[in-house]
């Protein structure tokens, strides 16, 4: 592996996690972002589970694309095949963890099956294909994107915990404040675009 490639991966790492953050600038995976960000520790649990699943899913989706879809010239079927593969993958991971790593299974808890329907997972797999990343680059991109999700959800959960005890006008209580917070976070994350 030459220096040039490593440098490219590093740039991709920063770019995917911070500059084009999956939730804050691509608006993918908003459902868990808003739904599971009530407490910092559950948010962190979700974040870790997402990192785990997306990294694995981008590897598997990359292999399937390269060796099945391209080979049979049916690249246009990527969405349906990826959905199938990711759903099955999450199921398999759940079974595997339950059998061989019960402690990790307990720690990830309900978040693991929840991720099956997280569009960020499919989003990453499709982005990898659209940008014509190789398998390794795709895995790095997947990991970075998921890390960006984890950072964003933990920050939002921290802010929400602080907001809990504030006297917020009735029309803004609950979700409106969360959405406004997410919007302000998105603006703040715009600042990272100067990095690259």
């Amino acid at each position: 592996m030459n220096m040039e490639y490593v440098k490219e991966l590093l740039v991709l790492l920063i770019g995917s996690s911070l500059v084009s953050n999956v939730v804050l600038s691509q608006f993918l995976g908003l459902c868990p972002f808003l739904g599971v960000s009530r407490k910092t520790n559950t948010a962190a649990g979700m974040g870790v589970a997402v990192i785990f699943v997306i990294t694995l899913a981008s590897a598997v989706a990359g292999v399937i694309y390269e060796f099945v879809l391209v080979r049979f010239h049916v690249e246009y079927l990527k969405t349906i095949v990826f959905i199938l593969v990711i759903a099955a993958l999450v199921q398999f991971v759940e079974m595997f963890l339950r059998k061989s790593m019960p402690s990790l299974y307990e720690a990830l808890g309900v978040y693991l099956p929840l991720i099956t329907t997280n569009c960020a997972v499919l989003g990453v797999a499709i982005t990898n294909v659209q940008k014509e990343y190789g398998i390794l680059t795709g895995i790095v991109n997947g990991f970075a994107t998921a890390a960006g999700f984890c950072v964003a959800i933990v920050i939002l959960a921290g802010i929400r915990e602080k907001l809990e005890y504030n006297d917020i006008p009735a029309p803004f209580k609950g979700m409106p404040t969360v959405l406004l917070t997410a919007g302000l976070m998105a603006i703040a994350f715009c600042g990272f675009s100067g990095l690259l």
Partner: protein
Amino acid sequence: MSITGILSAAAVVGAVGIFVGLFLGVAGIRFHVEKDEKEEAVLAALPGNNCGGCGYAGCSGLAAAIAKGEAPVNGCPVGGEAVSGRIAAIMGVEAGSQERKVAFVACMGDCEKAKEDYEYTGQHDCRIMAFVPGGGPKSCSSGCLGFGSCVEACPFDAIHVVNGVAVVDKEKCKACGKCVEACPKHLISLIPYKAEYVVACSSSDKGPVTMKACQAGCIGCGLCARNCPAQAVTVTDFHATIDQEKCTGCGTCAEKCPKKCITRT
């Protein structure tokens, strides 16, 4: 698109589907984990509110603990005897009698009876009263603040602030203990449902201090303790306590109480 294109697409997706299905099927057998049948039956018997009153994360948590024998069959405070009986049948043990409990707010200092030092117009939340001068507007340092943090905590709509004091609806209360945790003044406790008489005051200030702050405060005069035929009432720290085990429900204490802070539940 030619017919071969359609066929190859169907073949690829079909093959992937079959492969994934077989893979999951094999994995399902390979990684099969024995799930306790008892656990599932217990979970079905539990109320399913996921209130957390039992101290576990939810009904499934309690079900797992009961199935493992870590929690008693009557671990669910919400379901009462009906649920514990069913779970006992599943687990094959005696349920044991579970006394029904209800939450009780030990304060009667409503807007008329309790004096206020000043008029408070800030946020209505008991928990922030620790940061308000005098610990809240009421003169009594251990009175119900009446801002309803307990009301917010109650998952069963069983506690309400009536005339400045939280009051528990005995019939609706499931004794989950959420309000007990929520009250920053620790005024709420779980008492037996059958308890006849209770001291509805928590003040352990000296008599004259309580007297000045509230018309319905226990001043620790001891009339109740002296007159109780069953010796069920004791006065410590200028505050009467009724031992519900000994109480016969005669009502002498309530009659003798000069401040009328001993009431029927």
